[in-house]
């Protein structure tokens, strides 16, 4: 598929990388020649320097042959204009990034009236993910499938856990809950779990289950899994604002620490029930004074990744809070993984996942369609949900007899609203929703899992 990406910022680069990996033809457009030439030298893509919202530049960059235009520059207005012009000039689908809360409340209207295929808001998506993690603090990441009927959560095995030394096949019997372990990360290695795999301390595992069984699992692990009641948020930017409006609905008490006096006064008008503290979070005594030792959750959302990481490490050492760290720019995933952080949120990856799902769905016009897509281990393992169409080659064959590609796990089947954690004898029927965990790239259709 021919995809044009306007804007080579963090999100644009991540998208270009992942979409290029999946075999699409990418053209990137940006006004900064250095960004464009760097990216074009690093990836096998075409770069074009110019203002992507102008008709001339779009023409020269080949809009008439483009199937999808993704506008992810820093400016909402530019992105929308880009999509409008592309819509008129070529015959392509358009996706715009819109982050200003003033516009994002009108997303549906924008989509309909401007003919956009999708409006993405990385800040809002990040806030939603943070809210999910806060509802389930024992997990470090939670993704949901089939409108919340299935959850895929990541969990780091602490020292002295009953899990360490246990084999994957014994989990169901010993913990007496119906869950399926999908992946294990140990150090820099990651595995799709098979039955004989034995857990060790500090492994990060991802587990799929229905919400009820997930709760059972954590109970068996010895957690009183209560949703977070009070949150300390550092930084009052857009993500924090979205987080406030999401958490407010579920009655969580929120405290925001923000440096900028002007932002503080705006915030307290918009969110009268949130307590706004004006001050620099890098001041240790301020954090202690505001109760970092007793807070049940700590979310670092400043614009500086380094500051977020340091504040989170301090929060970990000072108290027992569930710590969430937003990381925007820093690319040292391996180093960050080894730091003792709970949950890290990468808005650019969340955005890329959302768009990737749309692209995959665009590619397979027939058969079964992809409903959701998450990356479980970034760049290595992903989990996707498909609706299985009539007559798909995977149906009515017991799973153990299905000739699958290696490193593919059928993690859950949702049939008539009921969740089934599949075992070898089960089979997929037409109309099922199926969650597949895979190391393979670019599985657009459920039939692609077959050899």
């Amino acid at each position, binding site marked *: 598929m021919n995809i044009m990406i306007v804007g080579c910022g963090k999100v644009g680069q991540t998208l270009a990388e992942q979409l290029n990996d999946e075999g699409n*033809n*990418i053209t990137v457009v940006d006004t900064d020649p250095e960004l464009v*030439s760097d990216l074009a030298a690093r990836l*096998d*893509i*075409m770069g074009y320097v110019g203002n992507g919202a102008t008709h001339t530049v779009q023409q020269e960059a080949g809009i008439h042959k483009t199937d999808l235009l993704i506008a992810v520059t820093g400016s909402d207005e530019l992105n929308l204009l880009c999509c409008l012009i592309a819509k008129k000039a070529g015959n392509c689908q358009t996706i715009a990034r819109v982050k200003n809360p003033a516009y994002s409340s009108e997303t549906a209207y924008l989509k309909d009236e401007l003919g956009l295929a999708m409006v993405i808001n990385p800040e809002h998506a990040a806030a939603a993910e943070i809210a999910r993690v806060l509802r389930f603090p024992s997990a470090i990441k939670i993704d949901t499938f089939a409108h919340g009927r299935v959850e895929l959560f990541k969990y780091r095995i602490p020292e002295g856990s009953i899990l360490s030394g246990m084999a994957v096949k014994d989990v169901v019997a010993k913990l007496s809950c119906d869950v399926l372990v999908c992946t294990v990360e140990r150090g820099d290695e990651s595995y799709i779990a098979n039955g004989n795999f034995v857990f060790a301390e500090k492994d990060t595992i991802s587990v799929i289950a229905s919400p009820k069984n997930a709760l059972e699992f954590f109970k068996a692990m010895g957690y009183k899994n209560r949703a977070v009641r009070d949150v300390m948020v550092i930084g009052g930017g857009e993500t924090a604002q979205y987080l406030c409006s999401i958490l407010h609905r579920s009655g969580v008490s929120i405290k925001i620490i923000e440096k900028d006096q002007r932002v503080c006064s705006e915030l307290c008008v918009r969110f009268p029930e949130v307590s706004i503290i004006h001050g620099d979070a890098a001041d240790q005594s301020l954090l202690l004074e505001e109760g970092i030792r007793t807070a049940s959750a700590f979310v670092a959302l400043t614009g500086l990744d380094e500051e977020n990481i340091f504040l989170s490490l301090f929060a970990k050492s000072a108290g027992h809070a569930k710590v969430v760290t937003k990381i925007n720019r820093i690319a040292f995933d391996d180093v960050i993984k080894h730091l003792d952080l709970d949950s890290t949120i990468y808005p650019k990856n969340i955005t890329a996942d959302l768009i990737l799902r749309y692209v995959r769905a665009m590619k397979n016009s027939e058969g079964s369609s992809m409903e959701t897509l998450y990356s479980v281990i970034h760049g290595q393992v992903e989990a996707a949900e498909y609706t299985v169409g009539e007559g798909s080659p995977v149906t009515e064959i017991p799973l153990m007899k299905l000739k699958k590609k290696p490193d593919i796990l059928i993690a859950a089947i949702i049939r008539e609203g009921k969740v089934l954690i599949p075992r070898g004898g089960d089979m997929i029927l037409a109309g099922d929703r199926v969650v597949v965990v895979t190391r393979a790239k670019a599985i657009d259709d459920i039939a692609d899992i077959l050899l």
Partner: protein
Amino acid sequence: MNYKMIRNILGWLLLFEAGFMLIPLLTGICYGEAEIRYFAVTIFLCASIGLLFVWNKPQNPTLYAREGFVIVSLSWIVLSLFGAVPFFISGCIPNYVDAVFETVSGFTTTGASILTAVEPLPKCMLMWRSFTHWVGGMGVLVFIMAFVPLSGGQNMHIMKAESPGPSVSKLVPRVRTTALILYSIYLGLTLIQFILLLCGGLNAFEALCTAFGTAGTGGFGVLNDSMASYSPYVQWVVTVFMLLFSVNFSCYYLFLLGRIKEAFNAELRRFIVIVGAVILVITLNVRGLFDTLGEALRHVAFTVASLISTTGFATENFDAWPELSRTLLVLIMFIGACAGSTGGGLKVSRLMILFRGAFNEIGNLIHPRRVKRITIDGHPVEPEVVRATNVYMMWYVLLFTVSVILISFDDHDLVTNFTAVTATINNIGPGLNLVGPTGNFAFFSIPSKLVLIFDMLAGRLELFPMLVLFAPQTWKR
């Protein structure tokens, strides 16, 4: 330095070279020649070493700029060393350095020969000589990239290092698709020329060898007198195609897409003006030497096309023309073809950047605070490109000077030495005096031949890959 990946790519290269040698092998079989056994041996040699090299796939396929340069220069050296083997073991060229010279001259599309007579050579050897032009014209690694998925996105470094011109642009987002499109255009044009030559009464062997020689802008012929004994029709066909192959191939792509206005870009327009003007002046200058104006025009057009496209075919001994014509001919040898073509030389677009930069600097002396950027086709040229072009020119002059000095130890006259280096560094073939269209390079000593081999490779690969290969920093950790 990722040695494993370099080894892997060299392995693929040898496998492809084994594949290329099937063409002379088939030719030999058609003509029932005994020399095909030398090709069979070389194919076996290349294929076995190649298989050994590609057997273990490296885990880390990452290539950086320096690996890109090293791979390109090493590939061309290895390609030539193995390509020379059939000439050597068959005894057609008894000295190995001579055989390498001939092969490098083939792959770099120079067409400079150390053979005094080519007609006695077996047909399979002649076919291999001409086919090296075709392979070398568009670039071997580009060819490999079109078929083997070498590595993720890193192969842009290789394409950049192998493609001629001050800056490389892709036609479509993927290097692989770009390479395929370029090779399709190349193959298409070669086929058309082949058919037109067949219509002109050439036999299939002659037509194919001539088409290969023209397409790569190489210049190896299969007759001792190059193109002189062919009919005027054949000479005109070759003239036209030499010019066609010295046009940037992306122009053809734009042409096929119907973007004709964009296809006639500033570089192409300049090229047409230069060719036209030089043909006009030289025709007027040499008119007296020929019976009719038409004949003069035919020979001049052929010679100018042959030298500016850096092919090096000849219909006439232009060494015997008046001084003005000889001077102009040497000058157009330096100008060369358009960027992104199969031709050599400095390239028209590079000269445009150099000239505009030079005039800009004069303007800056008069108005010190003036801000002006060089533009081509309305697009600003990045300062890095301008800088790289200036540096290129500097190295070009340096390498040229050093080469002339080094081969002067052989004690031949200045015009011979000067034009021998001109003809090799610009990948043309014939020069003037002793290396003129009727002469050859056989009389040079072995060290001089090695210098000229280096010049040919450096000229084809646009200097930098060869310079990087011999730069000490490259090999430091």
